């Protein structure tokens, strides 16, 4: 870090490298959030449910509406509820956003395109993703509103319950790849073979289909998306911990939510679909092609995620806990055991 660092063959001073490495994830969070928010939340949802919404501004499918909405959010008055703990209230959305930002640091987009390839990458990503729990609790408590507090308590119960299956589902992949580094996991899939045939590589979704299912279910719950959206259910707790947030601070929560959805899709694409690798293409070209491949896979995972979100009704609180503790965790544990045995046998 101290000396000049080679970035894509260009020699740069370490301060500049650090700046670039900080700014890229910082730009990717809102970009990813807006892409997911626009493509899936606004357009896919409206077409699936046959309620088109604003289609005029900007021409093609009303794409400019999103910019308009953003400007509207920023213009609004910065309201603090009466009796709220102002500092904690203001810090809560930043805490959520910080957790999202930190997740982007380890997701690789090409052979050299990764901000920091930690050798405990996936463990790190799951650790920082759970930081958002604290932000949610801060928001719920500092709002001085009983619905907000109820929503935050529901959210915490849910996030803690589903963190276990999330981590356990990843363990199967880690055993199979033999590394916790995300770059290493991508390479293990790119160089892998299926019964001696190496043309496709070995995307772990084939051997870890159970892990993938558990991971996606748990990720859906961690993201507080339907069918697990009890913490923000309008009909039960009038919006939960978000109830007192308006304007710019609500926008931050929105960015955090969809930015995290983008990051989880990125993780799922990296862990189970081979990340930036494309079968049959090798070498330096992947530094340019890799981000596009990864983006296509992320959109595929995101599509599935939001498809589920728009299709299923909300679960009950006890059904939610039953699903995590009685089904997902035992299934994930069995998956780990079987993967371990097969890894030793083969």
């Amino acid at each position, binding site marked *: 870090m*101290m000396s000049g660092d080679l970035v894509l063959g260009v020699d740069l001073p370490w301060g500049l490298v650090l700046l670039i490495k900080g700014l890229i994830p910082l730009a990717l969070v809102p970009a990813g959030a807006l892409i997911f928010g626009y493509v899936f939340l606004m357009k896919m949802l409206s077409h699936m449910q046959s309620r088109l919404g604003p289609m005029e501004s900007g021409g093609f499918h009303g794409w400019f509406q999103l910019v308009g909405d953003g400007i509207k959010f920023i213009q609004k008055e910065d309201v603090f509820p009466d*009796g*709220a*703990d102002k500092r*904690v209230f203001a810090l809560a959305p930043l805490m959520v956003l910080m957790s999202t930002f930190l997740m982007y640091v380890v997701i690789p987009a090409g052979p050299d395109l990764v901000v920091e390839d*930690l*050798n*405990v990458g996936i*463990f*790190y990503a*799951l*650790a*920082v993703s*759970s*930081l958002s*729990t*604290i932000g949610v*609790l*801060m928001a719920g*408590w500092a709002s*001085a509103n009983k619905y907000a*507090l109820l929503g935050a*308590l529901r959210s*915490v119960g849910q996030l*803690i319950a589903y*963190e276990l299956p999330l981590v356990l589902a990843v363990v199967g992949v880690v055993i199979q790849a033999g590394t*916790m580094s995300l770059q290493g996991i991508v390479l293990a899939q790119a160089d892998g073979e299926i019964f001696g045939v190496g043309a496709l590589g070995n995307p772990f979704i084939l051997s870890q289909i159970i892990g993938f299912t558990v991971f996606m279910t748990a990720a859906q719950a961690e993201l507080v998306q339907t069918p697990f959206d009890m913490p923000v259910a309008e009909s039960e707790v009038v919006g939960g911990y978000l109830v007192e947030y308006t304007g710019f601070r609500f926008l931050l929560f929105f960015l955090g939510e969809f930015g995290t959805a983008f990051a989880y899709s990125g993780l799922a694409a990296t862990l189970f679909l081979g990340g930036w690798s494309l079968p049959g293409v090798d070498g330096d070209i992947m530094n340019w092609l890799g981000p596009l491949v990864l983006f296509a896979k992320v959109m595929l995972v995101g599509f599935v995620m939001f498809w589920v979100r728009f299709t299923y009704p909300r679960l009950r609180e006890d059904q939610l806990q039953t699903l995590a503790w009685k089904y997902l965790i035992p299934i994930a544990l069995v998956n780990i055991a079987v993967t371990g045995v097969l890894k030793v046998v083969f």
Partner: protein
Amino acid sequence: MNLSPHDVAFGIIAAGMVIAAIGVVTTDNVMHAALFLVMVMAGSAAQYLLLAAEFVAWVQVIVYIGAVVILFLFGIMVTRAPMRATASQTNSQRFVGAITALGLFGLFAAIVVDAYEHTRFVPGDAGTTQAISSELFTDFIVPFELISLLLLGALVGAVALARKD
């Protein structure tokens, strides 16, 4: 004495940790105390990274987020979640406590300075995940298994204590 970037980073993080630690034991608001504790824990994780102990640092993050969140919930339960501090959370032993703590700190500081005043070091590779795992599952395998037994015992004990019937 020349300062390396590591020393500067240490100073900034340590200052934050000191302020937050004092906040934990002086604020009358249980929620604020929990948030200060989050700051201390995050600072500790950053110090571990400076000491090249990355695995322990991330374990600290993932374990203590859960722990602190649970402390939060209990804080909400036992104080009925008032927005403002209603009563002092400190008893009348304040001066005794301060004298004890300061005396202890003076003693520790004197011993440490006396013993290691000029010892400088550069962290090696003892903190890598690989080194930890290979030691943990060879030399320390019996303590490791005992820890898992202890955790199971604590789990059963906590459930037995807290269940209603």
